[in-house]
């Protein structure tokens, strides 16, 4: 008990502030600090350094580590990745980065430009395709995105390609018509072949604060999400809200974005992520 008092109250106060400043959120930040104090009661000899390591491990453990479809055998037909999320978070860039990533692993990839709404969205993905020498399925601006998604999976199947990566338009989660459109894209992909292994990745921008909760909540209502991508971690934002999301929704973070180039994509490492929040 005397050792416990050695860590003065400022330690816990500062720790809570570090967590809050990392966008973990006030409730989860307080809960993590209280849990830590509880753990310390059972480990009275723990130093401040021990406590930080424990907290790091504790935060890292929140992230489930289910195997993605691309690490499993795919008996027939292409695996499909669908990238969704609100406006400007990095979906198109991440689609390009994923294409480069899978191609570097020796897989054959095709892209689908299913953002048929925003100015030059199709051009942007086609430019990525040109840079990476990967084909891009596209239609005219204004075309039905579900139709583009369908064509992309069909083309991947016909050409016996390993992966189809489909980019979609940004949409704010409170736009009911846009969310309905997304639901249709998902169901059309399943209709093309219900056996197709599909991962639907919600792309989250690390600079976003607590609104990430509403984004995840609303997107998962209309389409079964299989994982998250956290972008822009090369900036000063820590993306700590991902810890709260992991606790609540148990979705794995598949990758993180750390820049604007094709190679600026890393598989998610929960330990490194937790450390970057605390140090």
């Amino acid at each position: 008990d005397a050792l416990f008092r050695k860590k003065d109250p400022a330690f816990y106060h500062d720790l809570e502030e570090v967590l809050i400043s990392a966008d973990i959120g006030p409730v989860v930040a307080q809960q993590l600090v209280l849990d830590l104090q509880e753990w310390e009661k059972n480990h009275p000899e723990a130093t401040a350094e021990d406590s930080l390591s424990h907290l790091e491990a504790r935060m890292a453990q929140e992230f489930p580590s289910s195997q993605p479809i691309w690490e499993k055998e795919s008996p027939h037909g292409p695996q499909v990745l669908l990238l969704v999320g609100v406006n400007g978070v990095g979906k198109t860039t991440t689609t390009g980065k994923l294409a480069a990533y899978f191609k570097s692993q020796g897989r054959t990839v095709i892209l689908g430009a299913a953002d048929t709404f925003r100015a030059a969205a199709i051009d942007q993905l086609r430019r990525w395709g040109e840079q990476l020498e990967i084909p891009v399925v596209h239609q005219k601006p204004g075309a039905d995105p579900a139709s583009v998604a369908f064509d992309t999976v069909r083309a991947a199947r016909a050409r016996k390609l390993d992966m189809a990566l489909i980019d979609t338009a940004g949409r704010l989660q409170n736009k009911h018509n846009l969310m309905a459109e997304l639901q249709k894209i998902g169901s059309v992909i399943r209709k093309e072949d219900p056996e197709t292994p599909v991962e639907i990745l919600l792309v989250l921008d690390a600079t976003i604060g607590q609104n990430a909760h509403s984004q995840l909540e609303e997107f998962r209502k209309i389409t079964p999400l299989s994982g998250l991508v956290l972008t822009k971690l090369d900036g000063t934002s820590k993306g700590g809200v991902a810890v709260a999301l992991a606790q609540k929704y148990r979705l794995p973070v598949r990758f993180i974005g750390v820049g604007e180039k094709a190679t600026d994509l890393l598989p998610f490492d929960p330990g490194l992520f937790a450390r970057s929040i605390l140090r």
Partner: protein
Amino acid sequence: SLTGRLEGIFHKLTGKGGLSESAVEDTLRELRVALLEADVSLAVVKEFTEALRARLVGQAVKAGLTPAQQIITEVYKEIVHILGDHRANIALASKPPTIVFMMGLQGSGKTTTSAKIALHFKTQGRRVLLVASDLARLAAVDQLRILGEQIGVPVVLPSEGVTRPQDMVASVRKRILEGMYEIVIVDTAGRLSIDEELMIELKNLKSLYNPKECLLVVDAMQGQEAVNVSRGFDQSIGVDGVIFTKLDGDTRGGAVLSIRSVIKKPIKFVGSGEKLDRLEPFIPERMASRIIG
């Protein structure tokens, strides 16, 4: 809601007289959580609650109001006051052209907002020119070109072989004189405030164009780093005004309060949708209610 939680605090109290110190402490604790959940930055929340503590302790409760209602009204009025109570608009240069710079983090809405501002001034009868100065992002130039076509505003595109924004300045100046444009809006590439090289590029570009207004475009759903980022842009480049985008979403928008209270620059407009007519004046009262939730 916050009102509900505050009612809960005062429901337990039966004492008459002014607001007791312990009730105020409980209130400030609830308020702190509410503001942090709304993405108001920690430093601003502390400052805000400190100032509020001094005013609330011993304060008499007005007739017809519950203590919770009184406190919420106090909080609301203070937020409205910080957010600024005058109509900010883009200042025009004493003689044309008025050059406006759009800058900010990646994906914040600069290109879309450039076109919105162009439409805003065109509708007022001004001669407007857009400059596609983002030569980094794939198809960024195409994006602004297409938006310009949609609203009938000419866009200066980089000439063949031009790869650096500063190499466009001469041809832009020429276009301005030839077309006698009154308002020139320069769209720039998204960048991190901690990217020294790109901040130097932007500073250099600013000295070449000498813009009347440098506008920081900020995504309203920004979290705790909103203050550091905006302060970074203000210190490196100089911010004359801020535009918050994507306010048609359901974010509480605490970043608006944080940025306004720290860098103290006027909020010129808000973006409230993807279509180019979705540019609105900033209304502090609406924002205050939204932040309080």
